[in-house]
């Protein structure tokens, strides 16, 4: 545990200082960090899964506290916790099956099967029940100790590969090994989230479509390029996305792929949207109520799309799906960046005096990073699960 602390601190610092930004990068690095945490965790003999989970949870809380707006961190931490529980449960499930078949059980899980005799019927019943319950990210929030993990959902969302790996009951190392393997799968899933999403492109984009997007999202870019590969004809209006102006970069990439692109200013979105067939955008995070945390300006685009009855499609990898409900997201889940993006300090230095009666500055500059799009404005979510 102690030897992993420097790594954790380093990552916490990076998050605090916003050196690492963007859901994808953050998710990936979080997963890798947690993998290191797990691999360096000294497994005790009893209740390993619980201690492992505690360790991961502690690290996770540090990370989330470093940058609460990077919801991907929390998502990944929860996924890892889920993996741990799931791995553990699959081992115990096998154990339970073994239990139901034979009276003898393996020795490793003595701690969890203390009340083994009483478990049999209830456990089997609950296990059967849980097997039928659909997977839910909500349950990931539960802080149930691993001993009662049997009553939790049996299946997992995307990492069910781990289950097969832990088919046989082996030593303590097996759990760790499985968890690490599963986290590796998670990392791969994060990296390759674009492909399953892009496969949907063909179903959405047909011929002679006009698509509008704002800012730059790698998912959207892959999406559009996939449609282009399938020889669908369409053209794209890219709104530049002040104040970062990443729309320019996206336009350049699209043009290189041979897609007809027009760059427009953000103010022209309403004017142009009447001629647009579809709006496809990326997201920073998707909340549990379906609301979308997206780069600033997206709410304006969504409202305009609703007004003109243009479908609003959000594409996002599953690492952006967050089980939290947003409360006052414009303020709490937002970040105000430097005013220098909007105003040149040198030019406006004469306005920056504080000489009013209450001492407050006459000039405030607001530069939020994110926008909240309520769920009723979104027509379709496309993810990789």
């Amino acid at each position, binding site marked *: 545990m102690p030897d992993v602390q420097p790594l954790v601190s380093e990552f916490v610092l990076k998050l605090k200082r916003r050196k690492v930004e963007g859901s994808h990068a953050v998710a990936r690095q979080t997963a890798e960090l947690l993998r290191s945490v797990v691999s360096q965790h000294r497994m005790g003999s009893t209740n390993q899964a619980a201690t492992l989970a505690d360790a991961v949870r502690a690290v996770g809380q540090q990370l989330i506290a470093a940058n609460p707006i990077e919801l991907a961190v929390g998502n990944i931490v929860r996924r890892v916790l889920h993996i741990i529980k799931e791995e553990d449960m699959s081992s115990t499930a096998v154990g339970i099956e073994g239990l139901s078949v034979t009276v003898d059980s393996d020795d490793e899980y003595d701690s969890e099967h203390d009340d083994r005799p009483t478990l049999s019927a209830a456990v089997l019943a609950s296990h059967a029940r849980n097997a039928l319950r659909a997977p839910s990210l909500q349950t990931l929030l539960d802080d149930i100790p691993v001993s009662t993990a049997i009553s939790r959902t049996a299946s997992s969302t995307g990492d069910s590969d781990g289950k097969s790996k832990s088919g046989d009951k082996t030593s303590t190392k097996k759990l760790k090994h499985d968890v690490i393997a599963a986290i590796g799968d998670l990392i791969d899933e994060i990296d390759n989230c674009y492909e399953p999403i892009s496969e949907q492109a063909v179903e959405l984009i047909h011929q002679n479509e006009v698509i509008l997007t704002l800012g730059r999202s790698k998912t959207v870019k892959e999406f559009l390029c996939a449609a282009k590969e399938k020889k669908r004809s369409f053209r794209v209006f890219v709104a530049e996305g002040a104040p970062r102006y990443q729309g320019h970069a996206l336009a350049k990439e699209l043009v290189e792929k041979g897609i007809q692109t027009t760059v427009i200013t953000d103010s*022209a979105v309403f004017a142009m949207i009447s001629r647009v067939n579809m709006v496809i955008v990326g997201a920073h995070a998707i909340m549990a109520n379906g609301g979308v945390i997206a780069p600033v300006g997206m709410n304006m685009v969504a409202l305009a799309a609703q007004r003109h009855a243009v479908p609003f499609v959000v594409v996002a990898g599953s690492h952006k799906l967050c089980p939290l409900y947003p409360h006052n997201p414009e303020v709490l889940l937002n970040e105000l960046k430097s005013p220098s993006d909007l105003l040149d300090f040198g030019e406006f230095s004469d306005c920056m005096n504080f000489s009013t009666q209450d001492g407050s500055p006459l000039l405030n500059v607001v530069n939020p990073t994110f926008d909240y799009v309520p769920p009723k404005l979104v027509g379709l979510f496309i993810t990789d699960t």
Partner: protein
Amino acid sequence: MDLRRPPRSSSGGVEPKIRQVGFFTPDASGPSETPAAAAAPAAAAPQQQQPGAAAESPPSSDLSPGRLSPVMIPPPRHADLLAPGSPFPAGSDAVLATSAPVASSACFDASSAVGDDDSWSRAPSAAELEENRRGLNEGTPASIPQKPKTSKAERRALQEAQRAAKAAAKEAGLSGKSVGTASVAGPATSKQAKSTKVAQKKDVPQAAGSVASEKKTTERLPERERKKDAPHPRMQFDDVHKVEKAKKRAVVNQSEARNRVELFRHLPQYVHGTQLPDLESKFFQLDPMHPSVYKVGLQYLSGEVSGGNGRCIAMLLAFREAIKDYTTPPNKTLSRDLTAKISSYVSFLIECRPLSISMGNAIRFLKNRIAKLPHTLSESEAKASLQSDIDRFISEKIVLADKAIVSHAITKVRDNDVLLTYGSSSVVEMILDHAHELGRKFRVVVVDSRPKLEGQGLLRRLVAKGINCTYTHINAISYIMHEVTRVFLGASSILSNGTVYSRVGTASVAMVAHAFGIPVLVCCEAYKFHERVQLDSICANELGDPDVILKVPGKADLGHLKDWADNANLQLLNLTYDATPSDYVSMIITDYGMIALAECLATADKRTSHCERISQGAVVDIDSLSYDNNFGDT
């Protein structure tokens, strides 16, 4: 985004003819540059005939024979000159067939390539030919044939033959008739107009040369004023043929931009930055251009003067100077010649930057005043009267109107308000200043957008006055709208269905405010109202310089799109205006009163009548509109 209206019907040309009743002269008072073409001596003789016939058969003549008589009588002053034209009527029929195409094409070539409807071409060409005749009459008095004293029937026959020939020549081109109306300006008396026109016909075109010949559609404004129900089609720039012709007449050589957006091919887009050096080199060739007009044109080009009121005032003051220095050339009437000059100035200004609706209305007013000048006035009196008219227009319609708007709007600003404004509107700035002077406590949120970043100027001025301001960019309006209580917007124009035509981005601001339930108040002077209707922002707009989009100030590393012009797949679009639907607007504040559109939408008649009355300058009784109580306590 000029004042051209979309054609009402496919046969739009028929209606104006019917309505021309006593005003055939607008059409008949053809272009001043046709004499340029008519100067071709070869076609002189045959042309004189058909113009002769044409003169007696104004476009509407086939419909109202009874009305022919007053206009068919040639002006007494030119009776002797026209008499020589009479000996040739018999032989003219044969000549007509052949020469009509020649004359028509000559006329068409000479006229500017504006207007697109074929339905217009017939009426104007008849007028054109008439002009030709007149011009020729003056230019070559020796060879002027006597005007035939033909009977009505003969003249009718001539007219029919001529019309047939013209129909054949229609393919040759355009209606080019926008030009003719240069000297029109709604003449009070057609006879005098004709007579004076003959005199000035020759001089004006020769003096003006290419400058005068570029009459664009704006010249139609005076007649449009009368023929309200006959909208003139705008110049559509995707017709290559017409664009070529327009370019030949253009003062400023503009190279069309490469990589134009398909959707906007009907609007002109030129490569910016190439115009100034070209204009400078041409300065000494532009003799008829008054230096103050030239200066204003340059100011438009460089963007120094912008904003509906600012541009309009600058233009009017330049015209005032031009009128002050104007002297009537010999053998011309002041009204005709001055109107022609004004039209040439206007077309120059259009090339610098397309007209705003406020400017178009002001030009219409000025031409109307020139036309209504009593002919008994001496030149200096006329000039003084015009100058005072201009001064009155500026002071009444702009300055006093702004004061009235401020006094109305100040009632909507309460203490602890947070007011949001977009871009930089002169009226809204005045409202904020006045409210601050009155001691109201409020905050202002200034929303700005690329590429013009006009909000920064407004921000600086407000902070200098001590108003508490918040500055943000248009993407952040959803974030900031939670704090806002009122939204004040300016407008370039209000169209007759309540659509607000203003700076691009206004629609988004109004939409988000509406979504948050915040009242949107649009402040617009009454002179900016216009009768046309626009459904979206695409049918009429102004395309700005696309290069501005890729130049982001302060971020030198954004060189992604440096070579955009070379890439056929990449286009940049820089819109200047957009149309805000009326349901986002809660109230329009004008100098005549305040109109709450939400209420008016319930009874459409009321709204249109309000807008119509506003545009016609009627006073809307504020007390009758008890709508401002809506926002009393929100």
